[in-house]
């Protein structure tokens, strides 16, 4: 296929952003239409990518490689393989749905949608960039629009949250930048090509360890790994619904993806060396996140902490360095993205109506919003890992991958992680009981059920959740071959 489909996907939203920039401020309908169209086209192209992707090939597909900055040997190099395709497709889907769900925005419409499309450029770019420099650029492109989305359209404490988010991430990515430069200048010949770095360059062990650590800081902030996580609850709580969705579903995955794409293949010995601390941090994420989520009263904060908990499964599964483990991490990335995305959208629906997210203020909403309750139940069940829905696949493959690891002691860590599954059920069902069950709080007599536009945004993602739950092969099949190759490269 000679058509540079990936580049088109990345840059079409940019064209959309430019067009919105040229549209007069008053034409809000045109702006929303433009945003919808220009986030829909990448989705259609994503469908074509999925149709043309060959899961039997372990190497990169849809490759585009152009020499970009010759003196530094930097390429414009993009491509997809089994590790990245699932999350890449999810990005296209969720961005479109997020644009759809934010159509009720009234404040600074033009800027909002422009930023959203720029955000999409960065996110899509991160997952296909195979050149460290390009990767870093896209990584930073994501940051700026998100800062404004939180800082301008957010809740009451938006300034604090936005600045916290940006400081954390910039600090992390600067440290990562040092890592990138070190890797570049140590490699011989100097290169930024991730493939080449992972295949041909073997770095000294101590160097690998130091570099792994530098990249770790950059990615750990994004995942977020305990104790670098405290920006997340604040950012999630203050961000507007669509930005929360994007944060939880895509931005967090950039961290995990970074480990899988860069840290593990380029520094394999360090990956083995750091397997234990890494896995222990994963377990801490799982249990600590779940415990903290339990005591939250704000719906969004609870889901934010549950994200921390769920990302722990990715960490522990990755660190096991088994095929199933890596598969599990990638699957969990996808399923958590879909599940948490739907949860945040649904919370947005109730917040738009009730203007509060405090769990204790609600009661008996089932009686007023039966359809909404049904959808919320489905999303919650997916999040607590009910078989037949996507969440179970992610958790199960992660646990299985951890359990079969050859590193001694990982079985114990897998067993500890199962406690996370139990605690998740406790806090989510307790939340359901307090918000939807019991008698109706008369304060909410006037609430109306979910409307058509909201349904339109939420149903597709729920369909994905059910589909993956019933036929996980659709997802796992995409990555299995690439993962096998990757693990072969890491474990001698």
């Amino acid at each position, binding site marked *: 296929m000679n058509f540079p489909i990936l580049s088109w996907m990345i840059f079409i939203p940019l064209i959309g952003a430019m067009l919105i920039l040229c549209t007069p401020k008053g034409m809000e309908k045109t702006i929303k239409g433009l945003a919808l169209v220009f986030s829909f086209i990448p989705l259609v192209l994503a469908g074509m990518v999925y149709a043309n992707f060959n899961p039997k090939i372990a190497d990169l597909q849809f490759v585009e490689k152009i020499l970009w900055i010759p003196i530094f040997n930097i390429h414009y190099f993009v491509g997809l393989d089994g590790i990245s395709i699932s999350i890449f497709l999810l990005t296209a889907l969720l961005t479109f749905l997020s644009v759809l769900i934010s159509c009720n925005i009234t404040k600074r419409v033009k800027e909002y949608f422009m930023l959203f499309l720029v955000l999409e450029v960065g996110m899509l770019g991160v997952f296909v960039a195979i050149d460290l420099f390009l990767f870093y650029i896209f990584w930073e492109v994501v940051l700026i629009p998100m800062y404004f989305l939180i800082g301008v359209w957010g809740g009451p404490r938006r300034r604090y949250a936005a600045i916290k988010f940006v400081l954390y991430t910039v600090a992390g990515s600067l440290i990562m930048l040092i890592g990138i430069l070190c890797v570049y200048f140590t490699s011989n010949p100097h290169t930024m090509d991730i493939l080449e770095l992972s295949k041909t360059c073997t770095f000294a062990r101590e160097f690998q360890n130091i570099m792994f650590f530098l990249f770790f800081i950059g990615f750990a902030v994004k995942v977020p790994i305990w104790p670098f996580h405290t920006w997340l609850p604040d950012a999630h709580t203050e961000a507007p619904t669509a930005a929360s969705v994007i944060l939880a579903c895509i931005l967090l995955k950039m961290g995990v993806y970074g480990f899988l794409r860069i840290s593990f293949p380029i520094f394999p010995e360090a990956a083995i060396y750091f397997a234990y601390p890494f896995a222990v941090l994963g377990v801490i994420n799982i249990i600590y996140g779940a*415990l903290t989520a339990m005591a939250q009263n704000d719906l969004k904060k609870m889901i934010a902490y549950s994200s921390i908990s769920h990302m722990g499964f990715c960490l522990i599964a990755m660190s096991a360095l*088994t095929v199933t483990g890596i598969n599990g991490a990638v699957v969990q990335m996808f399923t958590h993205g879909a599940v948490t995305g739907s949860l945040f959208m649904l919370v947005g629906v109730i917040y738009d109506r009730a203007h509060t997210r405090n769990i204790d203020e609600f009661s008996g909403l089932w009686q007023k919003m039966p359809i909404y309750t049904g959808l919320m139940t489905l999303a919650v069940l997916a999040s607590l890992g009910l*078989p*037949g829905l996507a969440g179970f*696949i992610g958790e*199960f493959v992660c646990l299985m991958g951890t359990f079969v690891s050859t590193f001694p002691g990982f079985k114990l860590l897998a067993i500890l992680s199962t406690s996370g599954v139990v605690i998740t*059920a406790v806090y989510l069902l307790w939340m359901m009981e307090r918000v939807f069950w*019991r008698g109706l709080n008369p304060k909410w007599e006037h609430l109306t059920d979910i409307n058509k536009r909201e349904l339109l945004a939420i149903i597709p993602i729920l369909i994905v959740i059910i589909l993956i739950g019933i036929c996980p092969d659709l997802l796992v099949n995409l990555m299995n071959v690439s993962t096998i190759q990757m693990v072969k490269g890491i474990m001698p």
Partner: protein
Amino acid sequence: MINNAWLVPAIPFIVFMTITFFTKRFKNLSSWLSIAGILASFSMACVILRELSMSGQRHYEFSLPWFESGEFQLEMGMLVDPLSSIMMVVVTLVSLMIQVYSRGYLSAEKNVDFSRYYSFISLFTFSMLGLVLANNFITIFACWELVGLCSYLLIGFWHHKPSAAAAAKKAFIITRLADAGFLIGILCVGFYAGTFNFLNIEGLIHEGQISSQILTIMAVLIFIGAMGKSAQFPFHTWLPDAMEGPSPVSALIHAATMVVAGVYLVARTYTMFDAGPNALLVVGYVGGFTALFAASIGLCQNDIKRVLAYSTLSQLGYMMLALGVGGFSAGMFHLTTHAFFKALLFLAAGSVIHAMHSNNIWDMGGLGKKMPITAIVFIIGSLAIAGVPPLAGFWSKETVLMAAYSSGHMLLFIIGEIGALMTAFYMFRLCFVTFGGETRKHDAHPHESPWVMTIPMCILAFLAITAGFIGSPYLNDWFQGFVCFDSGHAAHHRGEHSGHQLVMIISLSMTGIGILGAWLVYGIKAINLDFVKKTFIYKLVFNKYFFDEIYDVIIVKPFVGLTKFSVGFDQGVIDGMVNGVATVTAGCGSFVRRIQTGLVQSYILAMMVGIIILLVIWMWGG
């Protein structure tokens, strides 16, 4: 027909989808659709059972690949063998009866959402059949969780009631806790056996590929899951609370089918238990303890459904006990007969509650005259569960006790006999208090239930009388021959008949003493037991040995404390440190800013001071 066995679970699933997406608005249509679907499933299950018993082949397996990851190939599949085909018939039959009955039971309530009820019941039937038919651990676990979900949704069917909401959540969470053990067991199986398929694992065990210690660990982990679902001690507290659900739901899910899933799981993976030394002992003693423990609580509860719930716990304990002493067929036989008479008892209790609008047995009394059919079927059920010959419970309980006796575990045998005594006593306490004597609550006007409720009860009563014959000498112990455990190596002891008379005499006298005692105390009131109520033991038993309170103190409270602590740690320590760094940085910034006044004089002053200091240092050092 066997080759189309997938249709049996598929039909309820299609019904579930149809109701959810199409017929939600048409309540009556939804309910009749569901009943028609389960009738079709039931007929097919019967045909399959018949074909299987005729055919020479022991089992038929069908499976589809599900997904593949690294070294694991996961499948979704079915295994039709005697065990699963019997269960299939039991599940579909009880489900059919309950669905018909529910039409009458629920229409008494105002604005009942039939569609929601029947869609959940259909989903449940689908999941339960899937569980029964599963040919591997992944499928069984998936269905296992789904039946748990349905139980959650149906316990909380009246979701506006806070007590129902709490009970639903409690049921889900406690079983989930146990399922974590099951999940770890499955991970072990995957790692040590490399496959999740039951038959493949059995093959590996027979070849001696898996060490017996590992097998014991796996079996015990799986048994933890079974204990949760079957509400065995110490996971028993959710089942009595689950009685918050509508009575037909209690009959279907919390008496006849879902709660026996734990017993079924042990039976399904019996090879693992059999090969791992001590694993069966754990099963037997947990079961035996639960049988006695729950029966004792049942002696003094006042809520008719709760007595039945404790009775269910106790009977589930019996089944586990039977499996634990090597009585594979005995356990499954008791499971089958129990499904009929316990479903019957719950439906009859539901009929009483329907008429009285109360659960308390002391509000009732004299109902025998006003609701004769209900009274008769309830007494039939009680006779069956007490083990009066020739009703169903007699034959199955006899096989269980016989298995315990012949295994040589005398303690378990004695437990079983004492449990039988208690069972007879508390069941007839219910009968005498509810149906005998005079009416105590005069504002209620009890009346017999409509035919949609009495007919299913009569059918189940018929089964409660006759179902035992399939395992009796009159039919050549057909059940024991059909559903038997093939241990791989021959000469497995299977109920030698020595001591048969002795066991029968002991257990019949236990039953007799129990019924007689209940008659003396509650029937003719010849003995007054009020003095017992003042004793400490009575208070202990009456309050269910305070297990809810104990769990609250040793588990719930510390757990809540832990969550509070982690939030405090998160905000105080971690975020405090983050904000501290920010404050310090900002502080430094503002301090530095103060120096930068913009006044040239002060800059020159600073410069002069600096030069002087440097000069001083230079002269000092020089």
